[in-house]
């Protein structure tokens, strides 16, 4: 097309115009009037809203069900099985290092995750989430982290902890120690006798699966009969409690642990027994008010500034909040801040106590 032809085409195109007769004008008038009216919901709008609401509800309930299933999954992984790596939703990673490694997730909540390393060794790369306590129970040793990389190896009744990055706090019944990057040690230290001894392997009441190693003895048979001349020992009560927990009899476990605390208040296991009783009352039996009292008892037995005392205080805040006693929860949270200003669970405790993290 040449320039002249373009000029010719433009001349023709300038004349092009659609007729806009009365019918078409009327269509526009109706449309303009309709569009300038205020919006009023019609039956169709209500139906659409109902469909959207139903879809939203289904999505919500589906998501909730998925979260619930994720929380309650057994999640036991061994290298003998298909999984060598365990990738968690928050980005944390666990690599199983030996064929005999057995690790399981025992508890998970927004503020607290607990794994149990029952055998073998594993490498942990934990995503940094300050609001959540990440704990690993390895026999009598408990490792608490915020965000770091480390390795744990079970050595019969002890555990070797090696930190590659960050810091972890290793606790055992009678003490605790902070390990920094590059440090490695075996816990409990030789000088501090491991709680688990010859015939009573159930040293860790915090880790329920340890009880699986204990022969599943009913409480009635673990405890001496009424006619027996001898009273049950602390070890027997502890073993009976673990056995009852592992076989799904939490009330028996509470009873045994209560006996232990009452009869052997000076026994090194007494604080742990009270703490475990509190956990069962709170998590399994849904009795937060009783749990709060029991955690307070555990704190008194363990000492307010000990590792177990710190945990017991934190759990006491959770229990008081669950029981609806918000004033008391706030008081306890303040106490936690005062006693453990650098505590690993400070943020979650203050949140549970309804207190701002900033002093």
């Amino acid at each position, binding site marked *: 097309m040449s320039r002249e032809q373009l000029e010719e085409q433009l001349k023709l*195109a300038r004349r092009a*115009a659609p007729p806009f007769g009365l019918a078409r004008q009327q269509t*526009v008038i109706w449309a303009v009037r309709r569009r300038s009216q205020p919006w009023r919901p019609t039956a169709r709008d209500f139906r659409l809203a109902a469909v959207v609401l139903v879809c939203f509800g289904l999505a919500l309930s589906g998501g909730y069900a998925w979260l619930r299933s994720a929380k309650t999954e057994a999640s036991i992984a061994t290298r003998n099985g298909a999984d060598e790596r365990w990738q968690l939703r928050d980005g944390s990673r666990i690599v199983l290092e030996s064929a005999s490694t057995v690790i399981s997730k025992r508890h998970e909540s927004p503020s607290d995750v607990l794994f149990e390393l029952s055998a073998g060794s594993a490498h942990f790369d934990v995503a940094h989430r300050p609001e959540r306590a990440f704990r690993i129970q390895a026999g009598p040793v408990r490792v608490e982290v915020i965000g770091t990389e480390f390795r744990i190896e079970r050595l019969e009744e002890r555990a070797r902890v090696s930190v590659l990055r960050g810091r972890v706090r290793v606790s055992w019944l009678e003490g605790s120690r902070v390990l920094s990057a590059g440090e490695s040690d075996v816990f409990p230290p030789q000088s501090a006798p491991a709680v688990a001894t010859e015939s009573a392997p159930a040293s860790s009441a915090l880790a329920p699966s340890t009880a699986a190693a204990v022969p599943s003895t009913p409480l009635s048979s673990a405890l001496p009969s009424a006619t027996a001349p001898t009273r049950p020992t602390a070890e027997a009560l502890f073993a009976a409690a673990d056995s009852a927990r592992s076989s799904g009899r939490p009330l028996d476990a509470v009873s045994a642990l209560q006996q232990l605390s009452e009869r052997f208040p000076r026994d090194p296991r007494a604080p742990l027994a009270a703490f475990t009783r509190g956990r069962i009352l709170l998590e399994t039996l849904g009795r937060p008010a009783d749990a709060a009292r029991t955690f307070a008892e555990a704190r008194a037995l363990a000492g307010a500034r000990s590792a177990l005392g710190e945990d017991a205080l934190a759990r006491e805040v959770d229990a008081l909040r669950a029981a609806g006693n918000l004033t008391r929860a706030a008081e306890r949270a303040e106490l936690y801040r005062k006693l453990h200003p650098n505590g690993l669970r400070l943020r979650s405790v203050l949140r549970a106590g309804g207190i701002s993290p900033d002093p």
Partner: protein
Amino acid sequence: MPPFRTPVSSERPASRGSARAVDGRGERIDDLVRAHSQYVAGLAYRLLGRDADVDDVVQDVFVALLRFRSTIRDADAVRGWLSTTTVRLARKRLRRRALREFLGFDDLNGVDSPVRGATQEEHLALLRIHRALAGVPANARVVWLLRYMEQERMEEVARLAGCSLTTAKRRLETAQVAVKKALGHES
């Protein structure tokens, strides 16, 4: 002759009370539509190059007029206001059409049936010009059409396009290069 397009919005309004809708100056919207719709439709048709979008643009223009009538100084300024609004809405439609074409939902060169009132030759001429402008950005296309199709002065083109005179000239040059290229290919 194509079948007359009846959009969904042509249903009668539910409320008869609004049939007496008037603008801020007491002038009924019916009178405004009857007075100016032919002009708006013609401008929109030539800017868009197809009849399919004209009714929607005309509706949008008069809805905007009803909403912003109070901002128009006098009755003589209505025609100017309608021109500016039509150009703005047509440019928006051209942009949307280009996006749809890019996504494969719209064929810019698709053949539109000649409309009533425009002869076959006039319609085909318009179609050829829009084909020559295919691929030109909406801003530049509108400036070129206002200058050469509507034969507006550059100052008026800039005002209608809502840009400075320099920008209008630059856009015109962009479109002109594309048209020359298209002409070269055809010859």
